[in-house]
């Protein structure tokens, strides 16, 4: 199965988070994860600028709270034992009745069928309760989107470069950041003469050989 990616570029219209990432965010899978803090912050900024998505997230959260509040309690072991005992004893009593009266036989069969139906309904309730309330924090039994991305045997997952944006760094420290997009990658490319136009400037503009620059003279020997 192709792992669902939470790379931003896999979103529907480029520059948008994909549905899997939004679902993971709704499920709280980005919470409490320092390695995903930058991704979570970026996603929250994007959500803040998209009111429809924000409203949908709130509606989904309200639905989840309602589901959790109205889910029936799981029967206790004692209740299960009592129900089973009752069923077995009634089933035994039905088999022990004299079969000569057709009416009585029909009535006995109806008892067994009814009890069987009740037992089946109880079993369904128990199964649904166990499925949806298996964990207070993860009501859904399907794997989370991030389970596909993060290998279980990697206790310290490393962020990818596109997940980290370095906003400020000293020039001497850039070598200590093997991951992350720096403000400047590689050599600085300068504007050409046709690339820039000055206006309302009191600074002297010097047109160098290949590149113009603004230059405030400090000493007399400067141009």
């Amino acid at each position, binding site marked *: 199965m192709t792992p669902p990616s939470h790379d931003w570029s896999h*979103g*529907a*219209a480029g*520059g*948008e*988070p994909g*549905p899997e990432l*939004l*679902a993971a965010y*709704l*499920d709280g899978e980005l919470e409490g994860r320092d390695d995903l803090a930058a991704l979570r912050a970026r996603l929250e*900024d*994007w959500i803040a*600028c*998209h009111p*429809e*998505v924000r409203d*949908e997230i709130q509606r*989904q959260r309200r639905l989840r709270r309602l589901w959790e509040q109205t889910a029936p309690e799981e029967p206790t072991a004692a209740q299960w034992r009592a129900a089973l005992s009752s069923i077995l004893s009634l089933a035994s009593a039905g088999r022990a009745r004299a079969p000569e009266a057709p009416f009585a036989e029909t009535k006995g069969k109806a008892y067994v069928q009814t009890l069987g139906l009740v037992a089946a309904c109880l079993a369904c309730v128990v199964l649904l309760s166990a499925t949806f309330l298996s964990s207070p924090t993860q009501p*859904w039994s*399907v794997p989370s989107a991030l389970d596909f991305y993060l290998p279980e045997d990697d206790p310290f997952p490393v962020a990818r470069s596109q997940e980290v944006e370095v*906003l*400020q*760094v*000293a*020039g*001497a420290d*850039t070598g200590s950041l093997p991951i992350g997009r*720096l*403000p*400047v990658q*590689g*050599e*600085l*490319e*300068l*504007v*050409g003469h046709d*690339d*820039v*136009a*000055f*206006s*309302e*400037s*009191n*600074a002297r503009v*010097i047109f*160098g*050989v*290949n*590149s*113009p*620059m*603004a*230059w*405030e*003279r*400090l000493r007399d*020997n400067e141009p």
Partner: protein
Amino acid sequence: MLLVLLAFSGLVATRPAPARCPEDKVKVTLVVILATEQGNFVDKRLRKVAEEIQKIHPSLKSFHLKKMTDHSLTPGEKSVFPLVDAQKASIVVKHGADKSNKVCLAVTPPGQDEIVYSTVCGKFLPIVTKYETKNQERLILAVMVQPCKE
């Protein structure tokens, strides 16, 4: 989970573009450079900057990259960039990419008047300021903006 995915798929596909949000911002990159007349060290990232400046003022021999900073600004928003020695520069994006695909900026170096210019994206404009540190290092700024229209 499946229902949630379906809900969000439809929402992402059909939502209209919002007005003032990260898509409207301009990322301004400021590089702080210190140049001196001593030594002979040129940071390899500053090779072209050093070449251009030395053609005009050959006495500046060494160029060190002190700091690089990114700020994302909406048009009209002013941002203050810390430099060295508690000096600051302020930058205002006057407007994003226009018809000629140029962004207009106003840069105010320390102790100087505002410099207003329009520039293409992805390339740096050197600004040689008149500020010098106590070690006689000349403060040079290099400013770049992104993005422009494709």
